[in-house]
């Protein structure tokens, strides 16, 4: 009987599926084989920044479209902070390209 997976393993699988759909998977074609180079989801106790970037970009796209009102986003030209509904900072973004895109969308 297969062993039941932990919630962490199931989360990793879900995030990997999300990455396969929305990310940019590298496919390496060798002579008899094809490889998909997949990122590790959690590195120690931290989320892989590549997955985090994908989540943040999708989150920002959704919030600007739906204007859902969930959470607050504090933005300056240098830093974008996504906060929880209680006002606790969850993610800090210093990617200037993303910040500029977000600011341009709001105008």
């Amino acid at each position: 009987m297969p062993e039941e997976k932990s919630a962490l393993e199931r989360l990793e699988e879900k995030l990997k599926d999300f990455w396969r759909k929305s990310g940019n998977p590298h496919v390496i074609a060798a002579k008899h084989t094809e490889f998909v180079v997949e990122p590790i989801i959690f590195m120690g106790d931290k989320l892989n920044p590549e997955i985090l970037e994908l989540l943040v970009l999708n989150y920002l796209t959704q919030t600007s479209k739906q204007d859902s009102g969930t959470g607050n986003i504090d933005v300056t030209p240098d830093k974008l902070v996504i906060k929880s509904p209680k006002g606790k900072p969850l993610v800090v973004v210093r990617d200037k390209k993303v910040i500029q895109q977000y600011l341009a969308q709001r105008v």
Partner: protein
Amino acid sequence: MSSGVTSQTNAALTSKVRSTATEIGHQVVNQFISLTSGQIAAYMSKIGQIQIAEHNRYNRSPLKTTFQAGNQKSAQSPQQNYESRIVSKSEKEEIAELAKKAEQSQLKYEIPSGTSAFRAIAFLSKLIDSSIAKEAKNAFYEQRVLEGATA
């Protein structure tokens, strides 16, 4: 391990994954198109930071086929050839170099570590995919129980 050291190590590993993926991509395209799955897997497992999903196109043993081809071309085994050409630095040196680079550069995306990361994932994924949010919440509670049990 202190959180400073952890974040440095994580940043180093992230850079390593990226550079390894790029390096392997280039190497395979430029020189190693005839490498066997076994050889690539051996290298990848040596690096140890990338997970591989392998799909054998022909459902046969590529390892055997390509080892024969490699032996015709060179007296050295393909495995030795491969390692001597690609692995020029020791893994320790590489990690130390990456850690130094990571220390100098500022991370573009930051998230809390530990169980707080699960909360952040749940929040971010709520609008994208509710099943991710659900599993992130489950992982948060599961981890809390585990931490309580070990405390």
